[in-house]
């Protein structure tokens, strides 16, 4: 016994000494880090922001199919008067899950896909600030998404699906009116998704603020980086508000609290306030990433710099602030009082200004540009035009008397589909086409891409355009049927047929992915090159697909659109000419000397623990307690995980982990990791100079 005691205590005493390689030991079992970058396992344990981004995108597309199928059920039910495709109860579940899925499981993770993939690249970083936390965000999101979506199936088809609308107004969500498990799934699912988004927001904010490459000042960052950064700040401050609301709802349902118990004197308007204080910034959380994407695509295919860069950034920031002051325009008919209605009317009119600035700047960018109508450009122009329609119908809501007539009608449904589908989703699809070659090394087929765009756009306009008319005719949202004598039949039938046209357009996108991949493989996987669109951002300055270490060396940025200015200069007549071929400027990914953070088991383990806690809260608190113990144990496993694979040689490029991530202090894994990259760039010119002198 004493012998073993001594062997355990001995290293503690010697720890203060400089640690030699002899200290490097292999910890037990789970405390090693996973290895290898090939095969499906490497995806489960990856901490690479690019792979995480791709997984976000894939998961979002999967949920898009789920949410889309739900939409088609809604349209089938409403195709004819007195529809009987699905019952009223199921209908409530279907439209609620459609909304929740599209907002939280499609648009937000799709934006997260671009944020994860592109933010570090656009600011010239090797990875995000906290790679393991980044992986955790994804698995936590997937856990929340699976939990929410499973509500469709558990206990029977749509028996336990949330059925209170995506906004889940109290007291309709109390046990009295919603006795199924649906609202519990809603509350717990959104809570988990909130954790994922919050962690991701902190991570990405720190990445942008702290990990910019030398010279990348704030006003040299691409507009997409700016919009994504603003989005993360909105998430950071909006999510805790809905977290509070969801907790109150859970307490009411689980433990008979009184927050929305009208009998006990509660005012259920509290839910509406909390929900919309989150919910309206959420609208900008959905649209700003698409604005950023459009601001990247339009300059590239207009062959002009973005018009009014500073105004674009400032209008984004203005939206970020003003988005907090308009929430009660969702509540004009709830009796908030004439003063509130007037104030929120005015603020709602004002927030159209920065949005209008963006629209005009995109138009000015295109004006007299050399336009190339590629698929991404079509989507971007689609956003500008469709969002303008949605924005204008949005301004009509700021006129409170008019809004009072439109509340809870299909006019609202038409409006928010024009901004969320016509704005956010089209923008994100444009982003898929635009950055596809960057992520996968080949372009999607242009023919199929353009065809699917037009099919989608036409289907979209004939689905949601008629809803303006239906709404003004007085057709209510969220009602499963309408009578034949109400005069809604024609446009409902048009909308239903057109919704299947949208579905066709979406299937054409997936077919395009399949065909393009197949053709590329058949052609022997030709290299698309680092910069297939002749673009402007730093992400195009490295090989496609992006190598694991992003850039071969740190980039010293000297102005906005640094990469473009490296490619092009002016001749003596002031004409823009090619200064250097892309192949000379772009990195080829050949520097394999960069050490990256090792993969980790813990993010996915933690995600599993959260799923356990989630189901536990809904079904059995003992299961939740067990899940919590598992979760806490996993957090300690995470903290105690060694910084690096013990077999790997040299240093890793440690970007740090969470504040408890104790890997930085390990004496054998430290040695000025960030110094490596800097000294490489600083030394290189000196060496070549010596060579030429010699």
């Amino acid at each position: 016994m004493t012998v073993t005691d001594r062997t355990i205590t001995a290293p503690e005493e010697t720890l203060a000494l400089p640690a030699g390689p002899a200290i490097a030991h292999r910890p037990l079992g789970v405390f090693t880090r996973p290895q290898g970058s090939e095969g499906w396992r490497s995806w489960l344990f990856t901490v690479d922001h690019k792979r995480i981004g791709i997984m976000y995108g894939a998961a979002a597309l999967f949920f898009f199919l789920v949410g889309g199928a739900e939409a088609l059920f809604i349209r089938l039910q409403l195709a004819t008067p007195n529809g009987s495709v699905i019952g009223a109860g199921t209908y409530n579940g279907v439209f609620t899950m459609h909304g929740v899925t599209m907002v939280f499981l499609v648009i937000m993770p799709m934006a997260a896909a671009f944020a994860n993939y592109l933010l570090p690249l656009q600011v010239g970083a090797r990875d995000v600030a906290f790679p393991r936390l980044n992986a955790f965000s994804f698995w936590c999101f997937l856990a929340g998404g699976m939990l929410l979506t499973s509500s469709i199936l558990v206990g029977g088809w749509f028996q336990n699906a949330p059925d209170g609308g995506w906004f889940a107004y109290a007291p309709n969500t109390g046990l009295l009116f919603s006795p199924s498990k649906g609202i519990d799934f809603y509350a717990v699912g959104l809570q988990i998704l909130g954790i994922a988004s919050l962690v991701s927001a902190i991570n990405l904010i720190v990445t942008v603020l702290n990990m910019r490459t030398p010279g990348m000042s704030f006003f040299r960052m691409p507009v997409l980086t700016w919009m994504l950064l603003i989005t993360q700040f909105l998430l950071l401050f909006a999510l805790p508000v809905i977290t509070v609301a969801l907790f109150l709802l859970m307490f009411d349902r689980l433990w008979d609290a009184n927050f929305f118990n009208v009998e006990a004197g509660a005012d259920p308007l509290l839910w509406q306030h909390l929900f919309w204080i989150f919910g309206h910034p959420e609208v900008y959380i959905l649209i700003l990433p698409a604005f950023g994407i459009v601001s990247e695509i339009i300059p590239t295919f207009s062959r002009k710099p973005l018009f009014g860069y500073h105004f674009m950034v400032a209008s984004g920031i203005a939206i970020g602030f003003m988005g907090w002051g308009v929430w009660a325009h969702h509540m004009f008919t709830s009796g908030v009082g004439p003063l509130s209605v007037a104030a929120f009317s005015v603020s709602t009119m004002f927030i159209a200004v920065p949005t209008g600035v963006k629209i005009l700047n995109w138009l000015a960018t295109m004006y007299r540009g050399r336009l190339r109508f590629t698929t991404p450009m079509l989507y971007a122009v689609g956003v500008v035009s469709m969002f303008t329609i949605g924005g204008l119908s949005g301004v009509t809501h700021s006129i409170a008397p008019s809004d009072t007539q439109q509340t809870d009608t299909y006019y609202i449904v038409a409006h928010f589909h024009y901004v969320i589908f016509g704005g956010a989703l089209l923008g994100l699809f444009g982003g898929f086409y635009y950055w596809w070659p960057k992520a996968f090394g080949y372009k999607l087929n242009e023919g199929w891409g353009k065809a699917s765009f037009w099919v989608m756009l036409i289907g979209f306009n004939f689905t949601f355009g008629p809803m303006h008319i239906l709404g003004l005719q007085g057709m209510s949202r969220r009602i499963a049927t309408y009578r034949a004598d109400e005069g809604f039949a024609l446009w409902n039938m048009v909308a239903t047929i057109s919704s299947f046209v949208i579905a066709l357009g979406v299937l054409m996108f997936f077919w395009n992915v399949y065909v393009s991949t197949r053709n590329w493989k058949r052609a022997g996987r030709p290299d698309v090159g680092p910069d297939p669109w002749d673009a402007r951002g730093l992400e195009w300055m490295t090989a496609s697909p992006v190598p694991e270490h992003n850039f071969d060396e740190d980039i010293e940025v000297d102005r906005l659109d640094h990469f473009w200015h490296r490619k092009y200069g002016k001749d003596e007549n002031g004409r823009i000419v090619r200064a250097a071929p892309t192949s000379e400027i772009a990195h080829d990914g050949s520097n394999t000397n960069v050490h990256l953070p090792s993969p980790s088991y813990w993010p996915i383990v933690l995600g599993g623990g959260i799923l356990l806690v989630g189901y536990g809260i809904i079904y059995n608190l003992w299961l939740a307690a067990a899940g919590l113990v598992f979760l806490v144990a996993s957090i300690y496993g995470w903290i105690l995980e060694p910084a690096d694979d013990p077999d790997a040689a040299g240093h890793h490029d440690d970007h740090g982990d969470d504040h408890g991530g104790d890997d930085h202090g390990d004496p054998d894994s430290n040695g000025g990791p960030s110094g490596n990259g800097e000294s490489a760039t600083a030394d290189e010119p000196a060496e070549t100079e010596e060579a030429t002198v010699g």
Partner: protein
Amino acid sequence: MAETMTAEAPGHTPEHHDGEHHTSTGLSNEKLAMWVFLGSECLLFGGLISTYMFNKGRIGPNDVGPEDVFDIPFTSVSSFVLLMSSLTMVFAVSSIARGDLRGNRIWLATTAALGATFVAGQVYEFTAFYSEGLGFTTNLFGSAFYALTGFHGAHVTIGIIMLMSLLVMSMRGNLGPERAETVEIIGLYWHFVDIVWIVIFTIVYLFPQ
């Protein structure tokens, strides 16, 4: 300031750690992340405090209300204990920055103990209120009061767990002066939780009407 302190520390080794990483803002990623997180926490407590203020008066004339249960002298003492834990947290941060590992352990333990005293006081208070007829489900005041103070208590508890983890790390020799910033970051969280309590104590206890 922390960096100059570590530079003077006798036990300091010239190894790089994240606190001295080059970052765009000069703050380490971990510290910046904690600040950003605390920004988010402000809105969480903002929502909870608003909920409490919105609901505290919504009770019937014969219901148990704030003035029926609150024991201001008792809560003042436990608040004082919590505020003192912020002071000891400062000592913990400064001792590790000076390389005084033994002092660091003492102050970490003291901070955790003071925090635990506060939580124990809260548990006592909750049981006392419950026996006086104020349960979580009794009325809106009860629901809102327990939710708000309960959330704060949970935050203090998490802080205690983090402090204890630091203490264990220190005992095992894994918390040297090169990790002074880890203690500082936990300290940021701890101070935040204390500041929130000042707001809660003022709004909930001192101005019950």
